[in-house]
């Protein structure tokens, strides 16, 4: 059994060289995690946490989950659209296209989401009463604008990751740049971009908690209002946090399974 040990100061770090070793450590690790969780819960219970209350209010929070999922999904789709357009513009050689794209990315990567949400929902009507958005509209648009800027970079780098030979082969056949982009480059770039994009759905889901501040009755804001009303803020925060955590874990494992399936689909071809 060959372990490669490294000492950073006194900490021994271990890089697994055999999968069987890895499996044993993993089992131990899961055990530790489970016991830590139980430890946390008991600690809080000892300190006077009203667990019964939490269980009572759980259904009220669970009810908001579909809304959260839908808002996140719409925002993700819109963000992908924005990201794609911006990425394609960004990749262009002509300044007329890439300068606005760069500006969009810089602007919306630099403005905090909460500020953007407030501008969209509270600020715009102040400017001009015509510009009225519902909380959900403002929420989705804000999430999409902000995350779209980040997705632009993801898409752009995935397009740049496609081997240049592909572009050359397409050009040698006589394809126009539009044909080349849509038939050869983008399909391959999409495959590369899929894992990080799926990750973004989870990021957006967590970001969506901020939408509660502009009036959407979603998970976080519901928890907050119940907690403030009943003076059980801590309980509701823990509850909401736990729900988010579980959703994240579930979505992540679905994503991992899908990625594994796609991996095997390609490796089967080798």
């Amino acid at each position, binding site marked *: 059994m060959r372990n490669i040990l490294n000492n950073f100061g006194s900490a021994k770090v271990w890089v697994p060289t055999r999968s069987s070793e890895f499996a044993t450590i993993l089992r131990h690790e899961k055990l530790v995690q489970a016991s830590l969780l139980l430890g946390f819960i008991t600690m809080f219970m000892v300190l006077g946490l009203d667990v019964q209350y939490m269980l009572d209010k759980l259904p009220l929070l669970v009810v908001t989950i579909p809304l959260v999922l839908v808002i996140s999904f719409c925002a993700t789709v819109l963000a992908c659209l924005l990201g794609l357009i911006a990425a394609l513009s960004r990749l262009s050689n002509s300044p007329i296209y890439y300068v606005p794209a760069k500006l969009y990315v810089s602007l919306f990567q630099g403005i905090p989401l909460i500020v953007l949400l407030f501008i969209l929902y509270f600020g715009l009507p102040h400017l001009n009463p015509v510009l009225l958005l519902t909380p959900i509209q403002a929420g989705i648009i804000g999430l999409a604008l902000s995350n779209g800027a980040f997705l632009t970079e993801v898409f752009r780098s995935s397009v740049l990751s496609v*081997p240049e*030979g592909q572009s050359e*082969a397409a*050009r*040698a056949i006589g394809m126009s740049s539009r044909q080349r982009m849509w038939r050869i480059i983008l399909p*391959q770039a999409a*495959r590369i971009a899929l894992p990080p994009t799926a990750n973004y759905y989870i990021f957006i889901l967590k970001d969506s908690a901020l939408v509660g501040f502009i009036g959407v009755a979603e998970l976080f804001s519901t928890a907050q209002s119940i907690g403030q009303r009943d003076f059980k803020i801590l309980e509701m925060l823990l509850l909401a946090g736990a729900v988010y955590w579980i959703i994240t874990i579930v979505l992540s494992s679905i994503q991992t399974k899908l990625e594994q399936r796609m991996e095997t689909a390609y490796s089967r071809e080798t």
Partner: protein
Amino acid sequence: MYSETNQTMSKPMLTIQNLSKSYGEICAVRDVSLKVSKGEVVALCGRSGSGKSTLLRCINYLEIPDRGTIRIGPVSVEAGPMTRQMSQEIRDLRLHSGMVFQAFNLFPHRTVIENVTEGLTVVKDMSKHAAKSAGTRLLEKVGLADKSDVYPNRLSGGQQQRVAIARALAMNPDLLLIDEPTSALDPELIGEVLGVMRNLADDGMTMVVVTHELGFAVEVADRLIYMDDGIILEQGPPDVLIKNPETLSLKKFLGAIATRSQELALI
């Protein structure tokens, strides 16, 4: 010294006039002029950095020359600022030529037959049915008709390169540009690709091949061109050049190849 007037020059298929290409300070191709007649097979060789690949890639404007004119068949493009018109001319140039790459560059998200017909359906606007039958015929020619519906990453290197050749041929080019077709292949697969190229030459295809396989050059090529430092140092019938190199550069080049094959022979 090889003179082009010696050759019975049928109307040249490819004419390169005063081609120059630099990358910043480095001059890859210096004022090269060249004529290739129809049906002629030209082997282009030289050390790495001699400009041979750059020259080849300038022919179909994958690299943009700084100066010079390229003519393939009826289409001619002169180096200059890129305009919409020039882009169209370049596309025409590419429709008259086909290229085979060292790294094959097959489209991984398309099957073999789809790779071959991609150009036909997309660029030449052929119907799917017509394209498929044309493609199948080409695959038969390179011996891979049975692998039509397979994805490229299931094929060996030699098979992939043969598909790449079929894909280039699908566009019915006047001229085939082949860039080190066997350099990325395991030795036992080189033969099948060279065999296909020999058949093409026998069928009368005009070819310019950048290659290290001097055996192929001797057997198939009508002319060997040796480049160094961006210019053509020597050109002529392959066997003549290899037996009697005139310049020191070519002598050294051949010497290096000879020692390598000697080393292999000793094993």
